């Protein structure tokens, strides 16, 4: 087992700096926002951050300039904690669903719906087959590529999640009342197909042509309807098959037992990056009873042998900073269960956008350190 090296990555989103949030909301900045830009600029060694600080103070920056600065700050943070693979914390995107629905034709905003308690999200309806005039994220990718020499992994919202999170006013509406389950399934399948082929794939092809080496398809809705996991797989394959790049899928807060055997049909999928830490104990240890959040799902990876595991080791819903030793033990436990550390890479459970940057910095630093400790232990 000598020489094992775990790639460390983020999943996607980071929180946006207050100066970016307020600027886009049209709200005035106060001195604490400017001080935050200054202190993080220094902490992350952001070249030329004084120009940002000065511009914020003078109110002389336009929104695209502020967006660029936010992306640069996020990239520097992810570099500073020494991740191997990164993106820009999705600083230029509103939110993973809206980012696509607002760009693609065929979707119309419908309003807000409760997520939980007093939290709501915007939801769109598909009103005609979705389409795009060209790839969506090439410019964003090229900006990231130009500002880091690390491996870049581009996160894209998957076709199934777009379908599941949208209202359907096109595919299944007619004849929906009293319709058969087959009718409903077929409608959803056509919707997924059209998003995969007409929206996601042009983006994937454009990104790869622009030099993207790694495409991550995000499917948090993957197991919402367990019998539709085959549609998740079809959407992935239709969006990425034959494309010359690393391909992986991220899923979180889901019933992973529903994924197999369907995910065995994912074509050339490097790994499933899953949330585990949220379900786990915070105690150290590498026995089954020490790692309740990992045992069942890793057993499925072991049983089926495909694909690899993107091991979520940071709980993104908590400010608890996982000690490096806890990350180490989670990785070592996974290596023990799978019997093959080469199948494992290391990441947070999901995007860290709900956590402040101080917490993110500490969590990711410990994640990288924990991965190194695990490598040492395995060597």
């Amino acid at each position, binding site marked *: 087992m000598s020489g094992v090296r775990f790639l460390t990555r983020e999943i996607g989103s980071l929180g946006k700096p207050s100066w970016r949030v307020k600027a886009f909301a049209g709200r005035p900045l106060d001195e604490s926002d400017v001080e935050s830009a200054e202190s993080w600029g220094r902490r992350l060694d952001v070249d030329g951050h004084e120009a940002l600080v000065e511009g914020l103070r003078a109110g002389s920056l336009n929104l695209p300039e502020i967006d660029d600065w936010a992306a640069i700050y996020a990239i520097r943070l992810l570099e500073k904690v020494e991740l191997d693979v990164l993106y820009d914390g999705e600083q230029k995107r509103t939110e993973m669903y809206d980012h696509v629905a607002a760009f693609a034709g065929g979707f119309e905003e419908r*309003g807000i719906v*409760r997520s939980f308690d007093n939290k709501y999200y915007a939801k769109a309806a598909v009103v005609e087959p979705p389409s795009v005039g060209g790839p969506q994220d090439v410019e964003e990718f090229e900006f990231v590529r130009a500002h880091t020499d690390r491996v870049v992994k581009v996160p894209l919202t998957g076709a199934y999640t777009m379908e599941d999170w949208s209202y359907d*006013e096109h595919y299944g509406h007619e004849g929906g*009342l*009293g319709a058969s389950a087959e009718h409903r399934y077929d409608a959803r399948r056509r919707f997924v197909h059209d998003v995969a082929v007409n929206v996601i794939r042009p983006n994937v092809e454009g990104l790869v042509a622009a030099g993207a080496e790694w495409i991550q398809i995000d499917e948090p809705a993957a197991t919402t309807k367990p019998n539709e996991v085959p549609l998740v797989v079809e959407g992935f394959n239709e969006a990425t098959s034959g494309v010359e790049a690393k391909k992986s899928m991220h899923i979180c807060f889901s019933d992973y037992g529903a994924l197999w055997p369907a995910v065995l049909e994912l074509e050339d999928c490097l790994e499933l990056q899953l949330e585990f830490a949220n379900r786990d104990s915070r105690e150290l240890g590498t026995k089954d009873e020490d790692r309740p959040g990992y045992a069942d799902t890793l057993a499925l990876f072991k049983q089926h042998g495909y694909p690899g595991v993107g091991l979520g080791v940071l709980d993104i819903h908590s400010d608890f900073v996982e000690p490096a030793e806890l990350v180490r033990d989670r990785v070592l436990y996974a290596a023990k269960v799978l019997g093959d550390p080469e199948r494992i890479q290391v990441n947070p459970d999901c995007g860290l956008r709900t956590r402040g940057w101080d917490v993110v910095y500490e969590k990711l630093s410990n994640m990288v350190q924990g991965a190194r400790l695990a490598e040492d232990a395995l060597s």
Partner: protein
Amino acid sequence: MTLKAFAPGIYPRSEALVQATRDLDRGRTTPEAVAEQRERDFRELVSVQQSAGLSLLGDGMLAWQDVFRPLAEAADGLDARPLTRFLDTNTFYRGVLVDGEPRLRNPLPPPDLPDREWIGTLPSPLAFARAARDEVSAEKLAMNVLAPQIEAWAGAAFIVLSEPFLARDEGVGELIRALAELPESVPLALQLPFGDVSPVLAALAEAPVAAIGVDFYSTSLDAVPQAYPKEILAGVVDARSSALESTEEIARFAEELACRSPMGVSLTPNGDLQFVPEPIAREKLARLGRAATGLAEVA
């Protein structure tokens, strides 16, 4: 055959109320201001239902964060758990933590609506138990929590017990035993939102309730046997779709259903309307009312 139309369950909050609750969470407004906006929402909802010609009025449960929470908070031995996905939606509820003998401490007051003209909605005892991960039985929740709540709502014309899990799970026998613990002072309906009820519909004929709510966007009409011995709350408005139903289509469907001669038919959404934005829910109520009114006139 009777024909009514009404909308049980949680109704979506207006954007103004959403903003008020958001502001309250951020310390930008007061609970009193939120209560005032909620009252405005309530009065508006009553007006919308009346204009739509609905037979019974719902209060929209505008203060309810989910169908379990107020009862869990009003009962000893129960509390709110971490977030849990509600079925196959992107909306979450807080599961129920059992930390003692459940007993309703303070029944929730009835809405400010005329007696016998309003519908109440509560979780079914089985759903309540499932939300508590079966750490307490459905029968005990029926006896100690739901029964006193139903007694406190004696002025209701109908109480709808929402049962989202049965269509995906087992437990008909357990549910029927628990329902037997509930008082008969108010007619009860059992609604199975967002699920195919065909596997359990025959067995539910034995349930001690007056009506069964069926989601006809997940259940084929063929699943309803001839001469079903209970009223059907026909879920003919899709509460998970922004698409607006055709009143003609609803009416046609209701006539086909009536041909199967169930004990009665009422028209309802197939679940809580909170899964669509408020302006869409409002239009759906209007169409529900128009379809029922048109059918009643024909009859």
